[in-house]
């Protein structure tokens, strides 16, 4: 078993590509995007499903090494500076080190 970080990001669906591009650039070996039904944060309740799609959020999960995680955190602060998103990091272990 090998130690890694599980990065979880809640972000607007229309901006998901920017985030995954960033993850790719910073050396993440992969990521997974999950749909969100609704949420609440500082900007109040966000209910997905309006016709323009601008109120939809997604969750991006990325299992990454310590080094990649550090780079992502530095950059995501900058990337997301102007636009709100929720980033949390958890310790995890993975089966095969070479995948991450």
């Amino acid at each position, binding site marked *: 078993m090998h130690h890694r970080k599980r990065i979880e990001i809640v972000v607007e669906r229309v901006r998901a590509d920017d985030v995954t591009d960033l993850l790719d650039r910073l050396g993440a070996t992969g990521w997974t995007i999950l749909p969100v039904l609704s949420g609440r944060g500082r900007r109040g309740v966000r*209910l997905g499903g309006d016709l*323009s799609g601008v109120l939809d959020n997604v969750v991006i999960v990325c299992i990454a090494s310590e080094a990649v995680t550090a780079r992502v955190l530095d950059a995501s602060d900058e990337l997301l500076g102007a636009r709100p998103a929720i980033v949390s990091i958890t310790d995890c272990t993975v089966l095969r080190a070479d995948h991450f």
Partner: protein
Amino acid sequence: MPEILSLLPPPVMFFVLGFAAGLLRADLSIPEALARALSIYLMIAIGLKGGAALASPGATEGLWAALALGIGLSFLLPLPAFLFLRGALRIERETAAAISGHYGSVSVVTYAAAAGTLATLGVAQEGFMPAVLAAMETPAILTALLLARLGAGPDQPRLNAGKLAHEVLLNGPVVLLLGSFLIGFLAGAPGRQQLAPFTEALFPGALCLFLLEMGLMAVRQLRAGGRGLSWGLVGFGMAMPLLGGTAGLLGAQAIGLSTGGIALMAVLSGSASYIAVPAAMRLALPRADAGVYVTLSVAVSFPFNILVGIPLWVKLAGA
């Protein structure tokens, strides 16, 4: 019953049903995929019908004047909206610009509901009106961006011009409306006949279903985002359609459109976008509050236009 029908045709009654069900918190919801599917269907059906109509002889008469009028209104209507939002309501610059863009642009369903009312009343209209609808979708986006920049500080985030151009020219409604319009035009009368059971016979029923969902959605977004709306904004969401509609009405009379064309031009000018403009604003003006402009357009101006705007403009147009 025809009188009730003309004041409150079935699609509008379904809107009222959805709105009432939402207000009463009825346990009723329409799958999101169905709402999106119906929205796509309506745009394709409108485009195809318009294109086929344009293919008939003499149908282009008055087209250019109507296009020019529609594009001009789409460019200009955000201006008074922005001034009012900044001056009277003191809305933050980016949000004010984003909101104002919605009111220069148009709502496809409001157009469809008005076209349905005219059909029930037996009032004819220019066949090219769907082209005007498509043309009015996006000029307002440019005005909104200009307004957001004017007098703003130097710390503006860089505008990704490529992405923005895509949003303006290649947003879903424009692609679907213009694409279907072109296909309808090329396919002409035989194509129209082949597709009529889908695009024409089903139209009223599909519109009913979609307006049911729009009623539910209006209340849903009002609940989720309503706290962000001051009474001033709610008032604006009703006054602006009246201003826009009046401008459209007078303009259409000036260029000599038919009764139906005048009514539709007023409806278009008075309507507010809920697909193309929010999507563009989200990318171009990320600091603007999406909750405010989506809620204002979907939950205030849309119901107002369906219940008050359409009957008003149809009446004032002389139908």
